[in-house]
Every structure is written in structure tokens, then in C-alpha cells.
């Protein structure tokens, strides 16, 4: 039987830097989509609280506790990251999406200047601070964008990894060139 090696969809594409900006692999390990069954939102929140100290997040928010995070990703849906979804079995639709996403980390001073070239949502810290997330378009790609300290974590579909790195890299170079 063949020996298979797991590789990140960003293998060979990052790290990338331009001026003060860097783009790297966020190294997110386990992603589970959690969609509470009808009428089970409270039960899901209670189970998350008991197992991980989390709750089902309100729209556009992230709840973190240690390594575990839960990120709102749409109507009636959130991604549980870095935590075991087993306690939610039977009250929510659970789908392992760990291999489905490429997760980038963008850092640099006022990194929102870079994303402003590709994203039509205001991501400045005053309105998009810690614990904020948006589902929006990055260029023509669907994406999930989270505030992460001074920078951002950017989720795109695995198949979009190359395009995302190209587009963000282009924006990084353009903003860096303006000084």
C-alpha cells in the first residue's frame, strides 16, 4: 500500500512577504461544521459550554477558549476549530471540513489596507476587532475572514489556495510599494 503524506493546501505557496506584510499558513488543524438541528440551538450551546467552555456564536462573532474556537459561518452554521465535536452528536449536523479549507494568516501594520483591495467590507480595528468574523467575497472567492491580533486569518476553499495567495500577494506588493 502506498505511503501517503498529508500536506497543507498551502504547501510551497507561503510564506510570502512584501514590505512590512507577511502571508503564512495559519496551520489550523481540525475544522468541524456545526449546524444545530431545528430547535436545538440552546442544547448545542449547553453542550459546547460543558465540553469546551464555548457557546453557539451570534452572527459575525467568534468565541474562543484556550485552543478551542467556534466561528459563525452562516445562517444556523458555525465552524468548531481545534476541538472534539463528539459531544454535539445527535443535536447538530456535524461535518468534518478539516481538509476542505486553506487557512492563511496575514500580518503587518494596518494589514486591513491589503484586504481593502479585495474585500468590500470595512475591516479596520475600530469596527472589526478581536472576536469578529465576516463571510464575504475575497475577489471572486467565497471566504471567511477573522480578526487575529493585528492581522487576519483568511479561510478559502482548498481548491482556491493558489488563487488566494496570488491575489493577496499582489495586494501586499501594491500596498507595500506605496510605503
Amino acid at each position, binding site marked *: 500500500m502506498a505511503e501517503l503524506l498529508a500536506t497543507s493546501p498551502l504547501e510551497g505557496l507561503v510564506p510570502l512577504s512584501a514590505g512590512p506584510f507577511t502571508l503564512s499558513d495559519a496551520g489550523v488543524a481540525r475544522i468541524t461544521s456545526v449546524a444545530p438541528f431545528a430547535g436545538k440551538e440552546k442544547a448545542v450551546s449547553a453542550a459546547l459550554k460543558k465540553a469546551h467552555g464555548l457557546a453557539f456564536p451570534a*452572527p*459575525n462573532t467568534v468565541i474562543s477558549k484556550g485552543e478551542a474556537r467556534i466561528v459563525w*459561518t*452562516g*445562517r444556523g*452554521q458555525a465552524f468548531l476549530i481545534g476541538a472534539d465535536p463528539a459531544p454535539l452528536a445527535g443535536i447538530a449536523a456535524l461535518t468534518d471540513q478539516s481538509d476542505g479549507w486553506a487557512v492563511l494568516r496575514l500580518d503587518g501594520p494596518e494589514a486591513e489596507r491589503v484586504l481593502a483591495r479585495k474585500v*468590500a*467590507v470595512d475591516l479596520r480595528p475600530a469596527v472589526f476587532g478581536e472576536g469578529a468574523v*465576516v*463571510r*464575504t*467575497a475575497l475577489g471572486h472567492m*467565497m471566504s471567511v475572514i477573522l480578526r487575529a491580533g493585528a492581522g487576519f486569518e483568511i479561510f478559502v476553499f482548498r481548491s482556491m489556495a493558489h488563487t488566494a495567495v496570488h491575489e493577496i500577494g499582489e495586494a501586499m506588493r501594491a500596498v507595500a510599494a506605496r510605503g
Partner: protein
Amino acid sequence: MRITCPLCGERDRREFYYYGADDYLRRPGEGAAPEAWDSYLHLRDNPAGITRDLWHHEMGCSAWLVVERSTITHEIRSVKLVSDVQEGGK
């Protein structure tokens, strides 16, 4: 044009997909007359003024929305989740 999604907030029109009139929410029941199906599938008003249509927030939260807007001024009067409208009964 910007649409305020009840979940995501105000977003650019490019994030949304236009589906058609909100007549699609009023599907005839089983055994309805052919005229009702003809009307449901094919007959649409073309108002100069307020119209209600369905939009999908495909680049955002994936919710279906009922958008009430004016075809004359492009004003958007209200945006609601289809799930809320449907659960409210009709």
C-alpha cells in the same frame, strides 16, 4: 446598490444573487388548478414602484432574503429572512 442582510449587515450588491419575484414563496398546494400553476410559474407583475423579490446571500451567510424595494427610486425598504417570513405563516 447595497443590501442590509439581517444577519451579516450592510453589504455590496455583488455578494447577492437575484432569484426573482417573491411569488416563488406562494407555491400552489397539491391538486391546485392548472391556472394556479401557470400563474405561479409564468405570470409576473412589472410594477413601477414597490416590488418584493428573493435574493440569496451567496457570498455571505447563504440565507435567502425577501427584499422590498422601489423600481423607481431604487430605495430598499426592508430586508427579511425568508425563514422568518415563512415561519410567520401566511
